[in-house]
Structures are given as structure tokens and as C-alpha cells.
């Protein structure tokens, strides 16, 4: 039986598989980092903290990009009602991106960072050594080439086929992603300017154009699993992305409070970023509204769960945990503490990790030639959903507790204590965070296993008499 409406959608499959593989590696390095927080010299000097962190964050970005690209290759042909412009280009770029990414990670781990900078000609155009943009300049050039080829492929497909609001929103988001990445090449010796425009990559990605990509992916999956009228879904999408950009663009100012920019950013940034939870709240309402108004009972219950989960967790992580420390008088005390780390974890997981896992959950069974995963596989996938989500909530809560204590001891009390003295007193929370990280990893193992789980003859029956468990 042919399940894919367009056979070129199949190019999404390697992208999704690579995304999951890199996700696993990301979490393993996260466990190393968590341990180094409490046993400082673990794996030193083989893998110093800064190297492990760079691997952890860069893997996250790269696997999310794999996920976004896979999502686009899957949904654009279906939206445009035509085959992908060039499946071959998509396959070639897959290998280019994967090999460039792998070589970069190997470079991080195999040689000292300064040596890597020398080897890759950082002197010619120095772009390395800034948070999240640690990649060698040649890797950055590679990313631009892959992004351009990808945009060309997706753009040509959209141009020759049916134009929907959904694919337009996705395309605007993807173009924005590529355009803002170009600021990674701007690295002035003036630290304030460097920091100011560094945020044009980091903030305008995650609190700007990525939200468009996220909304489009979520909209597509909800369109498919609920059967709700396209007009309704696309209207919602426009409302969500309007809120995202109107709050998020000026909201960049919440990063400009203490880095040398004028003080008026405390007002501009504070007010607009305080409204940044709105698009995420709209996404939550959107998800539940669409599922409640569904016109069909889609057999992929796991995908529905991921979609609803994305709505809720993105609002909590990006919305609520962002709001907690976005106003300048509060941020004055919390800036650059474990409060930021807590927000970062739940926001990235709730919004971007979960939306990629949503589209994978929906599309992967179809890409593997089955209408829907076996019941047992779905149950396991839903177990992994709960294990990973609850673990991440606990990671966030423990980091928040650590952060509050850190702020108090280091910045609020009359005799503030030095950084390391404070860190030693946070050890309990760091241990608890690490245990929650181990639980997350167990959830991830269950997730991986769910791809290979088959129904046992009696398991089908058990699934039918326990609908409440799903």
C-alpha cells in the first residue's frame, strides 16, 4: 500500500533518523555536564566542561535543524501537492550536513579548541568562540551552503505547486533562520556590538523565526490528525505568528539590559518580552481547541499526545519560565544564574524538541510504510513521552531551586559569597538534577525501543480493553 502521497517525501526519513541519533549523543553529553557540576574533575582533562557543553548545545541545534529540514521535506510536497523539486539535492545535502556536523564534533573532542581554530583558518575570518556559535568558520560556511540549497529546493517546490498559508509561514520562518544566521559572521572587536548582534542569531531564532517553523509544523500535524477545516487552522497560525513576532522582535531588548546598551531597553525589552508568553499560550489553546473539535479519530494516538504536550510544555518553558525573569528589576538579580539554565532547558525541550518529536511521531510510521505504529509501540512511545517530559520538568525545578539559592547567597544577602563557595552549597540540587537527567535518558531509551516494538498477539487485546491508559 502506498502511504506517502508523494514519493519524494521519503527524503525526510534519513533527516529524522539523524536527528534522533544526534539527540541521543546530546543527552549523553548532558549527563557528563551534569556530573561535572558536582564532581568537578570528572573526565578532566580528556573532556573539559567547556568542550562537553559546546558538544551538548551544538548537537541540540544541529539535530533540531535536521528535524526542521525533515519536517519541511515531508510536509511541503503534501501542502504543495507536487513532488519535491529535487530529491537528489536533498539527499546530497543530507550527507554534506551530517559529515560536516560530525567532523566538527570530532574536531571539538579531538584537538584543543585553539588548535581547531588554527587548523580551520579562523584567523582569516574570526567567528569562533562565542556561545552557540563555536563552530569553525568553514563549518558556518557549510551551514550557509546547506541552508541555501535547502531553501532553493523547498522554495522551488512551493513555487511550482499549490500555495498554502501553512507552507508560506514555514518558508518565511526558514528564510528568517538562514538570514539571521548570517550575523554569525559579524564579530567586531567591540564586545558590546558583538553581543548586541550575536542576539540577532540567538534570540531572533528561538524567540522569533523558529516560532513560525514550530507553528507551521504543529499546524500541519493538527490538520492531519484532527481533520479540522484548513481555514480555521491557518487563521490560528497567523494569529500565533503575529503575536510571536510583534512581542519577540522588540522583546530582543530583554538581552540588552546589562551589556552596555542604553537603559531604555529595560522598558522596551521588559514590556514586549513580558508579552512573549502570549504566542505560546495561543499555541496551547490552539492545540487543545483543534483536538477537541476533531472530525476524525486518528489512530496515531502518540502523535496527538506529542502535539498537545508541545502546546503545554512550550507555554510553561518558554512562556512562564521566561516571564519569571524577564523584567529588568528581577533580571538584575537572576541574570546569568541557574535560573537562566532552568528556563533554557524547559524552553528548548518544550518548544523545539517536542515539536520535532511530534512531526517524527506523525510522519515516521508513514515513512516506514505503515499506516500507524502497532499498539504496543505507541504505548511505549507514550511512556517515553511522560518519562522525558516529567524528567525535564524536574530538571527545571531543581535548577530553579539552585538558581534561587544562588541569587540569594551571591547577590541578595548583605555579605554576598564568592561564586565557588555558593556553588558548593548547591550540590544537593545539582545531584537531584543529575538523577532527573538519568531518568530523562531512560525515557529516551524507551523512545528508541518503541521504534522496534511489535505487537504480541495478546497485547492487541489488552490495548483494546484499556482505553483509559492511552
Amino acid at each position, binding site marked *: 500500500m502506498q502511504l506517502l502521497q508523494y514519493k519524494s517525501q521519503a527524503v525526510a526519513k534519513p533527516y529524522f533518523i539523524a536527528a534522533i541519533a544526534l539527540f541521543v549523543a546530546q543527552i549523553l553529553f548532558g549527563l557528563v555536564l551534569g556530573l*561535572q557540576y558536582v564532581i568537578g*574533575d570528572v573526565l578532566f582533562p580528556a573532556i*573539559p*566542561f567547556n568542550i562537553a*557543553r559546546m558538544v551538548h548545545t551544538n548537537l541540540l541545534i544541529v539535530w533540531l535543524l535536521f528535524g526542521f529540514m525533515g519536517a519541511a521535506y515531508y510536509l511541503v510536497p503534501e501542502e504543495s501537492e507536487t513532488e519535491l523539486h529535487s530529491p537528489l539535492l536533498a539527499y546530497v545535502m543530507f550527507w554534506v550536513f551530517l559529515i560536516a556536523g560530525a567532523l566538527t564534533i570530532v574536531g571539538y573532542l579531538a584537538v584543543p579548541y585553539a588548535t581547531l581554530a588554527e587548523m580551520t583558518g579562523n584567523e582569516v575570518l574570526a567567528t569562533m568562540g562565542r556561545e552557540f556559535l563555536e563552530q569553525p568558520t568553514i563549518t558556518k560556511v557549510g551551514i550557509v551552503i546547506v541552508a541555501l540549497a535547502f531553501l532553493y529546493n523547498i522554495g522551488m517546490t512551493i513555487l511550482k505547486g499549490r500555495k498554502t498559508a501553512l507552507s508560506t509561514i514555514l518558508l518565511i520562518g526558514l528564510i528568517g533562520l538562514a538570514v539571521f544566521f548570517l550575523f554569525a559572521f559579524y564579530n567586531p572587536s567591540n564586545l558590546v556590538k558583538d553581543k548586541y548582534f550575536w542576539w540577532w542569531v540567538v534570540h531572533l531564532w528561538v524567540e522569533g523565526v523558529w516560532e513560525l517553523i514550530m507553528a507551521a509544523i504543529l499546524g500541519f500535524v493538527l490538520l492531519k490528525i484532527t481533520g479540522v477545516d484548513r481555514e480555521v487552522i491557518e487563521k490560528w497560525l*497567523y494569529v500565533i505568528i503575529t503575536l510571536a513576532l510583534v512581542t519577540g522582535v522588540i522583546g530582543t531588548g530583554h538581552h540588552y539590559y546589562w551589556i*552596555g546598551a542604553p537603559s531604555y531597553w529595560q522598558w522596551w525589552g521588559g514590556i514586549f518580552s513580558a508579552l512573549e508568553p502570549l504566542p505560546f499560550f495561543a499555541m496551547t489553546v490552539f492545540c487543545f481547541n483543534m483536538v477537541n473539535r476533531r472530525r476524525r479519530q486518528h489512530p496515531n494516538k502518540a502523535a496527538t499526545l506529542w502535539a498537545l504536550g508541545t502546546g503545554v510544555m512550550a507555554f510553561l518553558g518558554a512562556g512562564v519560565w521566561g516571564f519569571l525573569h524577564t523584567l529588568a528589576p528581577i533580571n538584575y*538579580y537572576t541574570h*546569568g544564574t541557574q535560573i537562566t539554565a532552568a528556563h533554557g532547558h524547559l524552553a528548548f525541550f518544550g518548544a523545539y524538541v517536542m515539536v520535532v518529536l511530534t512531526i517524527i511521531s506523525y510522519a515516521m510510521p508513514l515513512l516506514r510504510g505503515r499506516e500507524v505504529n502497532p499498539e504496543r509501540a505507541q504505548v511505549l512511545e507514550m511512556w517515553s513521552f511522560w518519562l522525558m517530559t516529567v524528567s525535564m520538568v524536574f530538571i527545571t525545578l531543581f535548577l530553579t531551586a539552585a538558581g534561587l539559592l544562588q541569587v540569594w547567597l551571591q547577590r541578595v544577602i548583605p555579605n554576598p559569597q564568592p561564586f565557588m563557595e555558593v556553588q558548593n552549597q548547591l550540590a544537593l540540587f545539582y545531584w537531584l538534577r543529575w538523577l532527573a537527567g538519568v531518568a530523562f535518558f531512560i525515557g529516551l531509551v524507551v523512545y528508541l525501543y518503541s521504534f522496534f516494538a511489535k505487537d504480541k498477539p495478546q497485547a492487541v487485546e489488552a490495548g483494546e480493553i484499556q482505553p483509559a491508559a492511552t
Partner: protein
Amino acid sequence: MSATFTKSMARNIFYGGTVFSVLLFLALTFHTTWKLPGRIPTATPSPEVARGKHLWETRNCIGCHTLLGEGAYFAPELGNVYQRRGPEFIKVWIKAQPTKVPGRRQMPQFHFTDQQLDDLVAFLKWASEINTENWPPNIEG
């Protein structure tokens, strides 16, 4: 959402709102760039400071430390380390790494020359003189 609020209305609000936000952001950015020279120690960083920043970057210091609150939260804030510790302590400290105290967080040894240490200190001094609106709240960072 009610039927009177149509998809094309939503779309127009999106494009209008986005263009307005972007223009406002660009105007504020232009103004910030214009005001910047008055908020930093020297309008153009000296060659020492520029070299120091380059060393800061190519040793990936941001992978453990924060600088003006941005970076990793594993090691102390360095935006005000010049005031907290002074230039000599900074150099001696960097040279003495790693401490190899069992269980303690370790900083790598970077084998800097004296010139490089001076450049790094010049960069940290420059960073410490940025008008940060009085952040961090106290000397501990």
C-alpha cells in the same frame, strides 16, 4: 474565533505587525549604535584589547564562564573580575591552572605567553569599564 474575523484579516495583521516591529527595532538599533561610544571605555578597542578578545574566543572561555552574565554558568563571572581580583592575580591564576584539587572544577592550562596574558587582561579591563547599568549587583558577580 468568530467567522467575522477572516484568515485574510489575520494575514494582513501579521504582515503589518511584523513590518512595524522590524522597523521599530531597526530604529532603536540605529539609536543604540549611535549612543554606544558614550557607554564604552574607548570608541575603538585598542589592538591589545582586540587581541585579548581573540584569545578569549579561541580558548572558548565562554564555555565555562559568563561575561556580562552571558555564557556558561559553571565558573565565575568575568565582566568585573578586573575589579574583583586585579591584573596580577588574574595572570597568576591563569598560569597556575589546573589546580588539580580532587573533585574541584578544573580549568585547562593554556600556555599563554606574558604578552598574551597582558592582552587578555587588557580585554577584561576594557569589558569591566562598559556601562552595564550597574550590573552585577555586587563584586562577587
